[in-house]
């Protein structure tokens, strides 16, 4: 008796789904949830999430690249980041003591994902509230901004 009811409801529900057409199968499946990066004990070990996997900074600063980076920084970044003081976002002064170069570049190039998934970026948005804007720098431009950051001295 009960089994019959269950069976009947099953059939009816199927009918319901068929007759109503339902949602056409979503052609774009939801992206699989990415695993959060485990909290690195040393923040300098965190390379962030984005296109930059590994970079090595040469001993000496490439002044030409740094100059180009300074120009880009002033055009696209200074609305929120002043070199030597906290503003809308943190100041880049001394950033190499706090972050890996890869993390910095990924934060510039991939901020939407970083503020959702990266543990340090998630903490930062709690502190600063304003999300980092994607200013669509190319990798080369982001690299030159990084070089400019190397020239910042107290």
């Amino acid at each position, binding site marked *: 008796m009960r089994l*019959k009811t269950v069976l009947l409801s099953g059939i009816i529900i199927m009918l319901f789904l068929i007759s109503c057409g339902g949602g056409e199968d979503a052609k774009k499946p939801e992206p699989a949830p990415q695993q959060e990066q485990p909290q690195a004990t040393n923040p300098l070990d965190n390379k962030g999430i984005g296109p930059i996997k590994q970079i090595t900074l040469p001993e000496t600063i490439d002044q030409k690249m740094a100059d180009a980076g300074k120009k880009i920084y002033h*055009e*696209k970044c200074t609305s929120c980041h002043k070199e030597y003081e906290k503003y809308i976002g943190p100041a880049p002064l001394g950033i190499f003591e706090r972050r890996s170069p890869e993390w910095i570049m990924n934060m510039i190039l991939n901020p939407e994902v970083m503020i959702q998934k990266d543990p340090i970026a998630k903490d930062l948005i709690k502190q600063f509230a304003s999300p980092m*804007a994607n200013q669509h720098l190319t990798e080369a431009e982001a690299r030159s901004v990084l070089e400019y950051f190397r020239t910042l001295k107290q």
Partner: protein
Amino acid sequence: MKNTLFTIIIISAIIFGCSKKQENAQGAMASGDAAQKVYVAPGNYDEFYAFMSGGFSGQVSVYGLPSGRLFKVIPVFSVDAEKSYGFNEETKPLLETSFGFIPWDDAHHPELSQTEGVPDGRWLFINGNNTPRIARIDLSLFETVEIIEIPNSSGNHSSPFTTENTEYIVAGTRFSVPFPQKDVPIGDTKFDGTLSFIKVGKDGKMEIAFQILVPGFDYDLAHSGKGKSHGWVFFTCYNTEQKNTLKEVNASQNDKDFIAAVNWKKAEEYLKQGKAKEYPVSYKHNWLDEKSQVAKSEEIKTVKVLTPADCPGLIYYLPTPKSPHGVDVDPTGEYIVGAGKLSADMAVHSFDKLLKAIENKDFEKTINGIPVIKFDKVVAGMVTKTGLGPLHTEFDGKGYAYTSFFITSEIVKWKLGTWEVVDRIPTYYSIGHLMIPGGDSKKPWGKYVVALNKITKDRYLPTGPELAQSAQLIDISGDKMKLLLDFPTVGEPHYAQALPAELVKPKSKQFFNLKDNNHPYKTLSENETKVVRQGNVVRVYMTMIRSHFSPDNIEGIQVGDNVYFHVTNLEQDFDVPHGFAVLGATNAELLIMPGQTETFYWNPKKVGIYPFYCSDFCSALHQEMQGYIRVSPKGANVPLKWWVGEPSAKK
């Protein structure tokens, strides 16, 4: 017993749950699969972009097909406070005319640019009826980028239909007026008509190449030849009686009026030969400079005019019953369908026969130097037993034509060549134009026809005396037409054009690159923001980025100052516009796209503290995106100061 009850409940749930779909079906369709055919799952894209004119709203609205979802309303001839169109200093020049700034027009026929007779997704043109103009919308921006006024014209209805490669778009006088305009008694003299050919440059820029002076009939609609008839444009006309009063009766006396066939390649020859006469005129040509995103308005003072009597072979009249409205050329270019709106039967002319009749001089008479071809020497066939009030015809590319019938509220499908009626479907109600994606081109995408209806009466929940007009999507992929969906439209969906989304979507601009910003009052970084006074003109060079303005505090503004806020959106990302609004400002907000600079004029009239803020929700700190302006009495000695952040940062 319990089981029975349970079943009943479930069945009622099914019926109830599906009731919406069944409502859609009422009186319109037999099969139940309409909902699936128009369902575009959340996050998925429509197959077609449809551009519908707003008629008296003066705008173009952009819909997806088959879903009928509205994506955007593009302001064209009417100001739009939402987008600051016609309110900010950048777009005001677009609405300049020889009569001054006009904030409205009646926009009728969207027309996609074509390459080799097929819509190519570059531009959309649309006519302004009332103060004759043609606008061009750039389909990478979905914004109006150019408007040209048509001189020596009035009631610009037979416009802006394109030639096969968008060499020209056309315009014509639905309302004849004296040429040139003068003060004369109405009724004593016959007025004149003009047919205008507007050359379209490679960059889309429009220029009036020539006008043809024609008898003052009412030139109603037009379409270009294609394929074999490329090089010709056909215009319908009614009121060959040339009456000026009670036209409802007086313009319907003649059994046949005309389709005017214009050979524009011949016109080009006559222009080269110097047959055109230059007439003094004054009209405005307005366009948006791409780099600065600032519109310019230019006055043009002459126009070239050809007179048919001096230019044999330029134009012919094809007698067509009765008060023909639409003139539509089939995809092969052979058949020219004249929808005689007061005739029981529709005449279809043959292009081959036209050429032969011209060669044999089969003319019944000549009007002002324009030969009138004998009807039986040009007509290919009559479509009979159709409906009442035929208006427009589009084609599916499979040998069938679809004609809208206003009085009998229906679409009739008939076969080209045999002229037999094969199907008909009611519309709700009083269809005007109809549209098949690419349906007036050489290669229609003949999957749907959209009925563009003038009257909805009981179709939707009522909204007081003024009701929505509507579009109805009809499946034409099978033998029988099937109604799938109807949806209300913005303004009057006078005419529409559609094309596959893939022809437009990949070119859609995401934001303006700051590097390319060439606005004369741009501010490319926060360090460059400033406020400059010259007499009583104050220019504020301001920037915006999530989520603050720079400067956001300004002092030293005085009552009566002419303040221009030149605001640059420094964002360089997709979908991050910011707004700008000031307490008491008498224009509208700005809505500034990333990388763009827009200008807001403000003339403060009272002292006080005036907040300004971002009016487009931009981030979690959108509510904090706000600043203050201090307005002091005229002549006060409050110094001009501006800052953002701590007062220590005061400049």
